[in-house]
Structures are given as structure tokens and as C-alpha cells.
């Protein structure tokens, strides 16, 4: 798959193209261009570092939505063994925007649940652009309750623009489905580890995001509303989305400063899609570390701690 570049990555794209050209020329005839190539590669590294160290929140939003960004099933492939996908909410349908199943993390049986986006047009439509309907949340709920029965920790992967705003979704109780998940997750007697891997879009994200620890991939976002939505309501213009992205504090660094995220998982230079396996390995280490820590608590203590954690969210004046 050829690399797709975002607008702000154009300098990187140009340098990479030039390097490829030189490599091609140098392999074709006997010309020795190695020095030149090395010089360009160094320049590329510096340029890339310079760009990625100074990303605006709006640029991070674009990275979080990058068409080549690893999705839940990609992470599942890298993080787990023996994955068995489980389908359906047992009531209405199998929502393909939400995937889940049982697997092993370092040998330990776990329940895995996540939003799923599609890569090409056909798949995007099949996955409904990662926007679940109520049956998606109810499938997640079914699997989470099952995990509790079988004493399996739950790992969730958040990557959605939001819950689907559709007629059928409303008819079948989108609000109730989300609310129910929030309530049930707050009381499950097994560890719940939530990771935002791409877009954390509002209630549709939180509906699988209530747990004992919240991790964020470095270039993911987590927000109460999309920057575009916020801009069109508060600025009356969707074009102000970059301003909204700034003000909303939706990037991992800001959220971690605000204490809303427990750990930020560093991504490879250029984003997780440039080296998905490396990104997944960093995430795996963090997940195992947190899981071991959480498993030292008795189930009741775990639930009580989670509850207190939830109560502490929010800043008020007395």
C-alpha cells in the first residue's frame, strides 16, 4: 500500500520521493549516490521531527482520522493471539461498526471490544464509518457481561466519529443503549482497560470507554463533540474547526495534563500508520503493565475505585 500524505506532511513526501528516486538511479547504474542519500535521509528525519513536534490540534485530528491509521482489528492482530470474533446483540442485528470477541493477551484470556472503521469505500459503508447503532452498543454490552461471568478482563478500543445519527438508530433507542453501557460498565467486577486509538467521538466513544484506566495513542483525539460540530454551533461556521480543535483540548497531551487520561502511548515518528507493529508493541506493554496492576485488587475494591474515579471527574468552585 503506498503511503498517503496529509497536506502538512508534503515536505516529508517530497523528500521521501527524492530519496526513492536516487535509490533507483543508484541501483540502476554504478553511480555512487550513497552520501547524497544519507544526507537526504538525515534531512528527512529532522524535517519529520520538526513537523511532528509542532503539530496543531487540527493536524492531530487529521492524523487520528488518517485513512491508513491502524483500526481495532489491526491492533487485535498485533496484540492478541487466539482471537475468536463474536457477533450479534441477540435482539436485532450484528453491527459491523463494533467488533468484539475473546482472545489471549500474553496468554491470558480477555474480552476485546472496539469500534471498527473500513479501509476502502465498500468496507467503509459496511462498517458504517465506525458509527455504531444501538445494536452495536448492545453487542458490546452482551460481551462485557459475558466477560464478567467468566472472569475475563475487558479491553476496549475507541475509534469512532460518534454514535450513528439515523432514523432507525433513534427508533431502537440509541440514547438508552449508550446510557445502559455507561451504567453497567461502572459496576462490572473485572478490570476494564480503555484505549483511544483514533477518534474518540463523544457519547458514542464513551459508551465503551468507562473503565479503570484510560489510555490514548499519542495522535488520537477524545472530545465531547467533533471540532466541526462545535465550530458550527459556537462559531456558526464549520470552517472554524481548527479553532474549535484548539479550544476543546482534545489531544492526548492536553487531556493527560487535565488528568482525564492516565497514559499517553507514544507513536512512531509520523504516526502509528507508518509502523503499526511498533505502535502496537508500545501499547501492548502498557496494557500488560496496567492489567497486572489492576488484577492485584479484589473485584469489590476495583469497582469501588472505579466509582471514586468517576466521581472525581469535573472541576467546580465551592
Amino acid at each position, binding site marked *: 500500500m503506498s503511503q498517503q500524505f496529509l497536506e502538512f506532511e508534503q515536505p516529508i513526501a517530497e523528500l521521501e520521493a527524492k530519496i526513492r528516486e536516487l535509490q533507483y538511479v543508484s541501483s540502476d547504474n554504478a553511480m555512487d549516490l550513497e552520501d547524497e542519500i544519507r544526507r537526504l535521509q538525515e534531512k528527512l528525519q529532522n524535517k519529520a521531527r520538526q513537523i511532528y513536534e509542532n503539530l496543531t490540534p487540527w493536524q492531530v485530528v487529521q492524523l487520528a482520522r488518517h485513512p491508513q491509521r491502524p483500526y481495532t482489528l489491526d491492533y487485535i492482530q498485533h496484540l492478541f493471539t487466539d482471537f475468536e470474533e463474536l457477533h450479534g446483540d441477540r435482539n436485532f442485528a450484528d453491527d459491523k461498526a463494533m467488533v468484539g470477541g475473546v482472545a489471549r493477551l500474553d496468554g491470558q484470556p480477555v474480552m476485546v471490544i472496539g469500534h471498527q472503521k473500513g479501509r476502502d469505500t465498500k468496507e467503509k459503508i459496511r462498517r458504517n464509518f465506525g458509527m455504531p447503532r444501538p445494536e452495536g452498543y448492545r453487542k458490546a454490552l452482551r460481551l462485557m457481561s459475558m466477560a464478567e461471568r467468566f472472569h475475563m478482563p475487558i479491553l476496549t478500543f475507541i475509534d469512532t466519529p460518534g454514535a450513528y445519527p439515523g432514523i432507525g438508530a433513534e427508533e431502537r433507542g*440509541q*440514547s438508552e443503549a449508550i446510557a445502559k453501557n455507561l451504567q453497567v460498565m461502572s459496576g462490572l467486577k473485572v478490570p476494564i482497560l480503555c484505549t483511544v486509538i483514533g477518534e474518540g467521538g463523544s457519547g458514542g466513544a464513551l459508551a465503551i470507554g468507562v473503565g479503570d484506566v484510560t489510555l490514548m495513542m499519542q495522535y488520537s483525539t477524545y472530545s465531547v463533540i467533533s471540532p466541526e460540530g462545535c465550530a458550527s454551533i459556537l462559531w456558526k461556521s464549520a470552517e472554524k474547526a481548527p*479553532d474549535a480543535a484548539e479550544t476543546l*483540548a482534545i489531544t492526548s497531551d492536553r*487531556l493527560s495534563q487535565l488528568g482525564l487520561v492516565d497514559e499517553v502511548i507514544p507513536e512512531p515518528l509520523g504516526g502509528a500508520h507508518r509502523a503499526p507493529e511498533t505502535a502496537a508493541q508500545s501499547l501492548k506493554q502498557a496494557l500488560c503493565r496496567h492489567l497486572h496492576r489492576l488484577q492485584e485488587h479484589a473485584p469489590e475494591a476495583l469497582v469501588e475505585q472505579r466509582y471514586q474515579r468517576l466521581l472525581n471527574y469535573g472541576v467546580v468552585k465551592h
Partner: protein
Amino acid sequence: MTNWFQRLMPSRIRTEGGNKHNVPEGLWDKCPACQQVLYRPELERGLHVCPKCGHHMRISARTRLNAFLDEGEREEIAADIAPADPLKFRDSKKYKDRLSQAQKATGEKDALVVMQGSLKQMPLVAAAFEFRFMGGSMGAVVGARFVAGVERCLEQQLPLVCFSTSGGARMQESLFSLMQMAKTSAALGRMRKAGLPFISVMTDPTMGGVSASLAMLGDINLAEPKALIGFAGPRVIEQTVRETLPEGFQRSEFLLEHGALDQIVDRREMRDRIHNLLSLLHHRHWQPGPAQTEATMEAPRESGEAGQD
């Protein structure tokens, strides 16, 4: 056009010739649904329900709680906490300025009022959203007050009633607001575990993050007639699906039809209905005294059992 109101109206308020739709300040209100002009004191006695068409107008949190709770002793819960601005949020206006504007306009510190009181002598906690305060949006104060209400219920084994009217989570507190959804839902989980009833009354409008958390988690979900209730706003849905939405979409009657509500309740009957429901659900902790049983229209049990705990 001469209608009853014009004939009744004292000449000093009667508008001569000018704009017929102009409603004089003070004594008169116009029903936004049927355009009927209504005498305000009568409207207030009728809890702001249009006597002509039954339209339920939006009312303030305090009007709501005053009408719902028994007169007499009430205690406001967590009244002292006020909103902060952890993000120094600024859009076309500063959040700080929006807050002080809303505070001035409503006399409230934030968009939820919680009170302990009684309903036909049954002690309980009741909460009501203030829609005029930034669209009844839920930020940290709303979450904290709601949880404080729940905690009071858990301490004293009381039922909880919440009247929602809200556009959803408050954007100006960003992810903190989103987390209030988890927080309020978790607190209601404790109510559930303790076997204490929560009645959620959805009023116009109950949308987004409030609908997708505390409002839909009632042991009993009630709504006022024709309230707009849903997760996504109608305009967002219309833009997404590119279809015209069906008549009555996301209104109370639609939700009842699709199984999301237990009942639609007229505001003027709210006290009776909720009292009856709670008398039944909360029977392990509270039973009506003898005088109370007579006063209740539909006494659910033999009066001989009443008052014995």
C-alpha cells in the same frame, strides 16, 4: 378578529389597530403551539399548560420543583457549588462571560437544581434542569449536584425524581462534560443496587448527552406530551440520512410507540402519578399514613395495611 380575550381585555391594554400578534407585556402570554392568547395568572395556575390545546410550555427549574414538591420544608442540595472554567474556553464569546450572563438571566448558578422535600408526604429528592441556563447543558456542576442528590437518596433511602430538559453535554467544559455522563450513570447504578427507585421525567427537549445517560436510566421513564427526546438532533439526522424525517419523529409519542417510555404524563397530573408509582415501587421503605390513603385518588392497597412499616 374579535375573540374572547379581546372582549375581556381592559381597554387600557387593548391594542388599537396595530399589530394583532403583539402581546402586551405582563398579564398575557401566547401559546406557542395554538397561538391562543392566555391570561398569565390562569396559565400559572395550570402549570403553564395551554388550557386550549394542552401544549406544555417550558418552565424554569424552580417553578417545576415548586409545583412538584409539597409546600413546606425543602432543602436545596449542593446549592453552593458553582461552575469553573478549567479550559479557559473561548469561542465567539468567553465561557466565563456566557456563565455570568446565564447566571444573571436565570438567578441560578448552573443548570440543575436539586432539592430534598416531600411529595404528598413521601420524602424524596427531586432534581430539575434549567433550560434557560445554557440550554440546560450538563457540565461539572450539573453532574456534581446530581450525584449529591443520589448520595442523599442512598443515605436516607429515598427515591429520586429528575425532570430533564437539556440540549446535552456542555461543550465549553469539553471532555469534563462528557465524563459527567459516566459519573451520573454510575451513581444511578448505586441507586439500582440499593433498590431505590429513580423516576426520570423527560420534558421538552431532552437530547444528546443527558438523554444518553441519566435521563434514559429511569426504573420508570416518563415524558411530558410532545417533548423532543433523542440522542442526535433532528437537523443532524436530516443532514446525515438526507431524508425528511417522519411526522412526530423523536417526540414523546414516538418514543412511547418504540418502547423507550413507560408513560406520557400530563404535567397537571404529575404529582398524582409519580406519587402513585413511588408508593408502589418504594413500598418497602414508605407507606402512606391513613390520612394520606384517603387523599390519594387510587389507593393501591387496603387502608388497614397503611402506615405500618
